[in-house]
């Protein structure tokens, strides 16, 4: 099942990348990043079964980083929304030269 799991993981990662590149809603882009993290977790778990349990411990750390990232990222989105009244990235260009 290792090859199948890696296949599904890679397809999910690809969908996440395409979502990040094609959408403009900041929250949906953020959820696409979460999808990519989940895809990586799936390969970690699959490899953990074939090469030793350390992969499952790494999944633990990835989930912690994802939780921290969600907290800070959503706080940034809320601050941005207060400033601009939108989460559409087309209207958020104050760092553009």
């Amino acid at each position, binding site marked *: *099942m290792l090859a*199948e*799991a890696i296949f*599904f993981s*890679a*397809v*999910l*990662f*690809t*969908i996440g*990348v*395409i*979502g990040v*590149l*094609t*959408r*403009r*809603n900041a*929250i*949906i882009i953020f*959820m*696409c990043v*979460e*999808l990519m993290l*989940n895809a990586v*977790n*799936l390969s970690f*778990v*699959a490899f*953990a*079964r*074939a*090469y*030793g*349990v*350390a992969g*499952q*411990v790494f*999944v*633990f750390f990835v*989930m*912690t*980083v*994802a*939780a*921290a*990232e*969600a*907290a*800070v990222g*959503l*706080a940034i*989105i*809320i*601050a941005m*929304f207060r400033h601009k009244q*939108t*989460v*559409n990235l*087309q209207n958020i260009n104050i760092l553009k030269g």
Partner: protein
Amino acid sequence: MESYPLFYTFHFYLFGIIAVASAILFVTRKSPVSAAMWLVSTMFSLAALYVMLDAPFIGVIQVLVYAGAIMVVFLFVIMLLNLGQPSEIADVRSGGWRLVAGLVGLALLAEIFALTRAHSVPGLAIPRGTAAEAINSMGAVGMVAGPLFTTYLLPFEVTSVLLLAAVVGAVMIGKQRRAADAR
């Protein structure tokens, strides 16, 4: 090639296909709320895959932390900012970006096929069924907790500092700064 019971293979493909289909529906939805719901569906199918890959504890944590906590925070922010309706401005990027996204997608898919042709390293592989035996001897939690609190103790402690920093940072960024604006 290892062989698995048909029952196992069928359900592995079933949950994998549900995960991929939900992910495709997730990136194509206009409304953020329905996108979040499809992402929850993907995460539940991934939890099922984790259980089938001899990681029941990770599967439970996936449901509790990802589908439970992180997605609730997302939905909470969508509710707070009143983004339930699809936005009136075009949400999907046009021509050039779609071309770039398609090319990146094709490149990544090509990498998948290169990966599936790769051979695993026989010297590194542990015998099949080791993980299942570890669950039987140490329990599903002990299998993860053992290495987490011995070999990976330092990364674990660093993670707690990371979470503390994230909590403090989220509060600082998110709080109203009326007093600072008034000055």
